[in-house]
C-alpha cells in the first residue's frame, strides 16, 4: 500500500467524476435540491390543496325533516354549509361527489325533542374523501351544538346548574421542547432520506469507476501502470465514498437551510393567524419543529461507517459487471434492499434492542431517530457503530479481493 499512489488515483478519479454529468446529478444536484423540493414544492402543493378544500363551503342535502322546519331553517342559515335542494338520488349524488354529504332528519324530530327524546339523525358521507370529511364535521358540529343547547335549556327549565352534566373540563398542553417535536416528526424521515442519498450518491461513481471503465477499455490501461492493485482499489473506493458522503452532507445542509427558510416563511406569513390562536401564541418562530444540531452531528457520525459499507458493496457488485448497463441492473434492485430496513425503522413502536442493533441499516435508522429526539443510549450507539465498522471493513476487504481476481476484472 502506497499512500501517494492511492492519492494520485483518488485525485484523478475526483477530477474525472466531477466532469461526469450522471455522477454529478446523484452526488450533488439531487441531494441538494431534493429536500427543498420536498419541503417547499410538495409541502406547498399539499397545503394549498387542503386549504382550498377547507375554503370550499360544502354542499349538503337535507333528507326528510319536513315536520322539523326549525332545524332545517337553522341548517340553511349555517354559513359554513350550503344546503341544496334534495333530489331523490341523493346517495348517488354523494358518490358522484356533486354533494359532499346528506343528513337524514327522522320524522317527528322536533316534536320528539320537545317530548323528551328523538330518533337518531344520520349523516351520509363518502368515507376517505377530504371534502366530504369537512362537510361531516360541520354537520356534526351543528348537531352537537343543537344537543348542547337542548341540554342547557332543559337544565335551565329545571333550575339546575350546567356543571350537572359537565362536572369538569378536559384540555391538553404540549410540554415537549420544539426540537423534541422536530425529532419525533422528522426523526423517522431524516435517517431514511440520508440512507437513500448515501446509497445513490455512491451508486453512479461506483458503476462509472468499475464497469464503466471496463466498458470503455480504460481498466486495462490503468492495470498496465506499475501501481499495485490494492492502491488502485483504495483510490477508486475513496472516490466512491466521497460521492456517498457528499450526497449525505449536502442533503443535510440543504435540509437544515430549507427548514430554516420554511420557518421564516411560516413565521412571517402565518404570524397573525398563529398569534390570534391564544393557546399557540408562544412566539410563532420557535413553534416551528426544529432539528437538534447535536443530534444531527450524531447522525453524521453514525452514517460514516454505513457510507463505507455502501460504497464498498456497490463497488464490488459493479466491478463484476462488464458494462455500465449490466452494473445498473445489478445495483438498482439493491435500492429496495436498502429501503426496506430504512422504512421499518420509520415505523412507530419499533425500538432499539441488542438484536436489532446488529441489523445493518435498520440499526442506523433506529439510532438516528433516537438521537434526533435527544435520546443517547451510549451502549447501543457503541454497538451499532462497532458492528457497522466491522461490516464496512469486511465489505472493503471483499472489494480488494475481487479487484485482484482475474476472472472478475477481465470477465468477458
Amino acid at each position, binding site marked *: 500500500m502506497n499512500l501517494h499512489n492511492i492519492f494520485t488515483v483518488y485525485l484523478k478519479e475526483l477530477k474525472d467524476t466531477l466532469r461526469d454529468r450522471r455522477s454529478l446529478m446523484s452526488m450533488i444536484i439531487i441531494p441538494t435540491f431534493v429536500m427543498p423540493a420536498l419541503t417547499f414544492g410538495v409541502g406547498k402543493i399539499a397545503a394549498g390543496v387542503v386549504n382550498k378544500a377547507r375554503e370550499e363551503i360544502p354542499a349538503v342535502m337535507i333528507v326528510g325533516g319536513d315536520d322539523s322546519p326549525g332545524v332545517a331553517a337553522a341548517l340553511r342559515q349555517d354559513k359554513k354549509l350550503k344546503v341544496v335542494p334534495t333530489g331523490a338520488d341523493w346517495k348517488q349524488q354523494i358518490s358522484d361527489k356533486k354533494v359532499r354529504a346528506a343528513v337524514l332528519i327522522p320524522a317527528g324530530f322536533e316534536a320528539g325533542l320537545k317530548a323528551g327524546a328523538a330518533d337518531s339523525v344520520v349523516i351520509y358521507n363518502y368515507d376517505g374523501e377530504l371534502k366530504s370529511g369537512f362537510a361531516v364535521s360541520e354537520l356534526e358540529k351543528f348537531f352537537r351544538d343543537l344537543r348542547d343547547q337542548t341540554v342547557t335549556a332543559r337544565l335551565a327549565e329545571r333550575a339546575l346548574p350546567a356543571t350537572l352534566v359537565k362536572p369538569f373540563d378536559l384540555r391538553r398542553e404540549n410540554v415537549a421542547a420544539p426540537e423534541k417535536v422536530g425529532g419525533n416528526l422528522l426523526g423517522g424521515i431524516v435517517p431514511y432520506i440520508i440512507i437513500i442519498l448515501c446509497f445513490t450518491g455512491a451508486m453512479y461513481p461506483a458503476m462509472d469507476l468499475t464497469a464503466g471503465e471496463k466498458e470503455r477499455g*480504460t481498466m486495462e490501461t490503468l*492495470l498496465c501502470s506499475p*501501481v499495485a492493485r490494492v492502491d488502485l482499489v483504495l483510490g477508486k473506493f475513496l472516490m466512491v465514498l466521497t460521492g456517498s458522503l457528499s450526497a449525505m452532507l449536502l442533503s443535510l445542509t440543504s435540509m437544515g437551510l430549507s427548514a430554516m427558510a420554511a420557518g421564516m416563511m411560516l413565521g412571517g406569513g402565518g404570524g397573525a393567524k398563529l398569534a390570534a390562536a391564544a393557546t399557540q401564541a408562544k412566539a410563532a418562530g420557535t413553534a416551528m419543529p426544529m432539528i437538534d444540531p447535536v443530534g444531527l452531528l450524531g447522525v453524521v457520525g453514525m452514517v460514516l461507517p454505513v457510507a463505507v459499507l455502501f460504497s464498498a458493496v456497490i463497488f464490488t457488485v459493479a466491478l463484476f459487471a462488464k458494462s455500465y448497463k449490466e452494473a445498473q441492473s445489478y445495483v438498482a434492485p439493491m435500492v429496495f434492499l436498502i429501503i426496506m430496513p430504512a422504512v421499518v425503522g420509520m415505523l412507530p413502536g419499533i425500538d432499539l434492542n441488542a438484536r436489532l442493533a446488529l441489523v445493518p441499516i435498520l440499526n442506523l435508522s433506529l439510532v438516528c431517530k433516537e438521537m434526533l429526539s435527544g435520546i443517547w443510549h451510549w451502549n447501543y450507539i457503541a454497538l451499532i457503530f462497532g458492528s457497522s465498522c466491522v461490516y464496512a471493513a469486511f465489505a472493503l476487504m471483499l472489494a480488494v479481493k475481487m479487484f485482484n481476481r482475474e476472472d472478475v476484472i477481465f470477465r468477458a
Partner: protein
Amino acid sequence: MIEAQHLTKTFKDKKRGVITAVDDVSFTCRPGQIYGLLGANGAGKTTTLRLLATLLKPSSGHATVAGYDVEREPEKVRAQVGFLAASTALYGRLTAREMITYFGRLNGMTEPTIKARIQHLAAELDMAEFLDRRCDKFSTGMKQKTSIARTLVHDPAVMIFDEPTLGLDVMTARAIVSFVRECRNRGKTVIYSTHIMSEVEKLCDTVGIIHGGRLVAEGTLPELRARFGEQDMEEVFVKAVGGEAALVAALKN
C-alpha cells in the same frame, strides 16, 4: 529483454470446462529487435502478452521482463513496460495532457520530469494542437498518438503491442508501424502481436507463429520461408498451423 519459459495459462469456463489459452510457450526477445507473434483470432496472442505485462498470472511456467520475474515482481515489470493494445483506451473526460500526466504520476515520476517529458513527446508526435482537448472528442489518429505518448511517458525498456493497428485507418496504421520501428531503432525490446501478414513482413526480426495456445514455429522470416518452402508469408502461416482445415477447426472453437 523478454524471456518466456514454458508459459501456460488455463481458464475455467462454465460451458467448455478448462481451457488452455497459452500452452507451454517459450521464446526470447532481445533489445533492439522486434519479435512478432503471429496468430489467428483466439490463438492465444493477447493472453501471452497479458501474461508478460503481468495483467494475468501464469498458471505455470516463468517469464522475466527486463530482468524482473512477472510473478514475483509484477510492479517492477510494469514499470519497465509500455503496453499498447487495441483494448487500452483513454479516459474520455481527461485531456491528452492530463491523461499522460496521470500515467507519469502512476509511474512515480516527479512533476517537472513529467512536464518536460510531455513537451518532448508532444513535439515528437505532433500533438501540440490537441494536447489540451478532451480525449472523447479525438479522431482515431489523435487517440493513437495520445496512447503512444501514454506508453512512452516513463521511457520503458520493453514495448508490448497487442494488435495495435486493429480497426485503424490506413494512415494511422502506417504511423503506428513506423512508431514500432522507431522503438526498435532506439534499442527497446519490442514484442508485437498481429494477424496481418504484411505487418509481420515489414516489421519483425523474429516471428513466432502461435496456434491453439502453442508456439508452432519460430524463426526469422528467411528461416521460416526456407523451412516451409513458401515465399508468401500467408502460405508459410497456413502450413505452420497444419493446413487450412486446422485453421478452420481452431476458429470454430
